[in-house]
């Protein structure tokens, strides 16, 4: 494999030899640092650009070979004004792919626009961060459980640039472990886990000096082939995040058999590069956290939370060796007020784009933002280019579906963990859609009940049983009216008694008489109403069973009424003649006994009729 790479490079170098210099820029100093401590290769370069020509220059070209460019996940250039610790706030400079003419093939060019044109003799310093995924090739490609994982990284010791480079150096930072081999050229020094190449001076444009480093890298190569993050907003106070992971261990493939015994008992000998656990850093105040896959909950997880963050440590169902896969889902709810804001009449969600886990490479990252039903005027602001389209999702209590913004990014790295915004308009009244649906659902149930009770479901309208039922219904209705009538009479009786009590308290005879008069009128009306009801019951054959009871009740009630009136008159008389309270009581005592007995009988009869 190594030989293959070298051959490539050789052909490539020959092709580059006779390329004209197009620009008057020179790079007076280049410091590069390649960080290989994780599976993601981060190359930080500090370039000091100097304009040696006469024309104003406003852009700087960066070069990356095509075979590396296809793994490039992230590229930024920031202006590096000021010195040392008092750096001015870094400004991101716009970077775009360009295809200048007359340049050698197999190179990708990126143009960095400078904030202001560079005049003759002026210098400008910029920092370039390039992040590559899948840049560390496992070598050997297959290992057993007991082996360590070795990887190869190859790059150039000379900064590949269309400009002349005056002074340059390169530091390769490796993990704290064994270094199998590395390319030794002039000025190569090794210091602990750092390999230093350079300084090299006055190199022409497109200088290329291939180097390779072969080293031990036991950190897990967690690659998410697909990660779907679904962020669902509910204005009732929650942002629900669901993340579907499809992970694979992207390091050296495992061969031979897996021994759980060796893995458990000799933890740091066998399976050093296996994925044991992953830590997801969730936002603070996350609640209802779950971790499951398609067969149910996975119990090997831990959760810590403080005021700044929530940490979820998850362990897959099995340790993941090279080439092994797993798929799972984590989900959590977040308080709405931490992520949803209102500005200039619009609402916006402010959320982080990438995966909450450290050092995970994501081949395809899909972020879906599910907005509440009734959102309009949707727009998205993402700090880097993404593919974007819109969908509709049907969730709880939806009629027309919720608008979903889908953002797709390939080759995402932790550097993409930046905040993005989704702007939309939403009326607070639309929040009432869900309760209105529930209310109308319940109301329909009641209406169905009403219709059922009102509907006449009989098939034959002339059958005797149907007619009998109709008549019985009528009898029942009349009896109910009859009951109401009697009950009202009894209430009036109570009121009469109450007026007597008032009399004994205040001694106001006139008021008592007036009340008596009013009640007399009412009772007369009631007994008038009673007559047609009684007549109906007497004529109806269905009511023959209960008729005696009803008639008895009427008689008893009348009796009771008379007795009560008599008592009332006696008491009022007594008061008019200014008799003593004791004397009146004695006189009505007998009457009172009869009244109580009658009232009891009337109540019993009423109860009996009610039970029909």
């Amino acid at each position, binding site marked *: 494999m190594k030989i293959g790479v070298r051959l490539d490079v050789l052909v490539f170098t020959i092709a580059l030899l006779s390329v004209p210099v197009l620009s008057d820029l020179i790079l007076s100093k280049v410091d590069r640092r390649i960080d290989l401590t994780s599976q993601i290769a981060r190359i930080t370069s500090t370039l000091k650009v100097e304009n040696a020509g006469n024309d104003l220059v406003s852009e700087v070209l960066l070069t990356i070979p095509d075979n590396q460019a296809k793994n490039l996940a992230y590229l930024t250039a920031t202006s590096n004004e000021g010195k040392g610790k008092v750096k001015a706030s870094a400004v991101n400079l716009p970077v775009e792919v360009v295809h200048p003419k007359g340049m050698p093939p197999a190179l990708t060019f990126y143009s960095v626009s400078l904030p202001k044109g560079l005049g003759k003799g002026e210098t400008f310093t910029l920092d370039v961060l390039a992040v590559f995924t899948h840049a560390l090739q496992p070598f050997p490609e297959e290992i057993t459980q007991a082996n360590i994982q070795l990887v190869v990284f190859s790059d150039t010791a000379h900064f590949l640039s269309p400009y002349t480079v005056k002074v340059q150096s390169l530091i390769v930072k490796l993990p704290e472990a064994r270094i199998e081999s590395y390319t030794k050229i002039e000025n190569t020094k090794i210091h602990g886990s750092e390999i230093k190449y350079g300084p090299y001076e006055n190199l022409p444009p497109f200088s290329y000096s291939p180097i390779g480093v072969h080293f031990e890298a036991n950190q897990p190569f967690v690659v998410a082939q697909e990660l779907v993050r679904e962020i669902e907003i509910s204005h009732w*106070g929650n942002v629900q995040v669901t993340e579907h992971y499809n992970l694979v261990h992207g390091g050296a493939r495992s061969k031979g058999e897996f021994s759980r015994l060796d893995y458990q008992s000799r933890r740091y000998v066998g399976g050093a590069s296996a994925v044991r656990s992953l830590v997801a850093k969730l936002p603070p105040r996350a609640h*209802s956290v779950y971790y499951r896959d398609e067969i149910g909950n996975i119990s090997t997880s831990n959760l810590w939370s403080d005021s700044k963050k929530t940490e979820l440590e998850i362990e897959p169902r099995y340790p993941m060796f090279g080439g092994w896969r797993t798929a799972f889902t984590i989900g959590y709810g977040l308080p709405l007020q931490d992520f949803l804001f*209102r500005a200039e009449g619009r609402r916006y969600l402010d959320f982080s784009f990438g995966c909450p886990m450290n050092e995970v490479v994501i081949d395809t990252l899909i972020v879906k933002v599910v907005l509440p039903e009734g959102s309009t005027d949707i727009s998205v602001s993402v700090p880097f280019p993404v593919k974007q389209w819109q969908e509709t999702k049907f969730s709880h209590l939806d009629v027309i579906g919720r608008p979903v913004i889908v953002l797709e990014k390939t080759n995402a790295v932790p550097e993409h963990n930046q905040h993005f915004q989704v702007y939309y308009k939403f009326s607070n009244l639309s*929040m009432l859609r869900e309760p209105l649906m*529930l*209310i*109308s659902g*319940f109301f329909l149930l*009641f209406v169905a009940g009403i219709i059922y009770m009102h509907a006449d479901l009989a098939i034959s309208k002339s059958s005797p049983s149907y007619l009998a039922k109709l008549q019985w*219904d009528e009898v029942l209705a009349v009896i109910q009216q009859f009951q109401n009538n009697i009950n009202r009479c009894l209430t009036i009786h109570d009121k009469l008694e109450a007026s007597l009590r008032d009399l004994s308290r205040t001694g106001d005879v006139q008021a008592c008489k007036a009340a008596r008069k009013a009640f007399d009128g009412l009772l007369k009306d009631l007994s008038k109403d009673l007559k047609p009801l009684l007549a109906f019951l007497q004529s109806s054959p269905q009511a023959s069973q209960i008729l005696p009871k009803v008639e008895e009740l009427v008689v008893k009630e009348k009796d009771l009424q008379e007795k009560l009136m008599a008592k009332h008159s006696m008491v009022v008389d007594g008061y008019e003649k200014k008799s003593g309270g004791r004397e009146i009581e004695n006189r009505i005592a007998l009457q009172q006994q009869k009244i109580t007995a009658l009232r009891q009988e009337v109540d019993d009869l009423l109860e009996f009729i009610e039970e029909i």
Partner: protein
Amino acid sequence: MAPKAIASPIPDAWYPTLSVFMLAIGLVVTASFFIYEATSSRKTRSLAKELVTGAVASVFLGFGSLFLLLASGVYV
């Protein structure tokens, strides 16, 4: 204009209490509706009273079940 955080119209902590009370009231009204249906005969029944009782019961049951959903974590 500085961005302002948007919170839910009713604090989350109230959802369980609200749901219990509204469902209790709703169920009582529902019970009275069905008692009325069962005890009144076809002649004495009043449609307006039935509809009003049904409407009141469904408002309470509707909001009660909404808050029940929210309290149990189903954010609609």
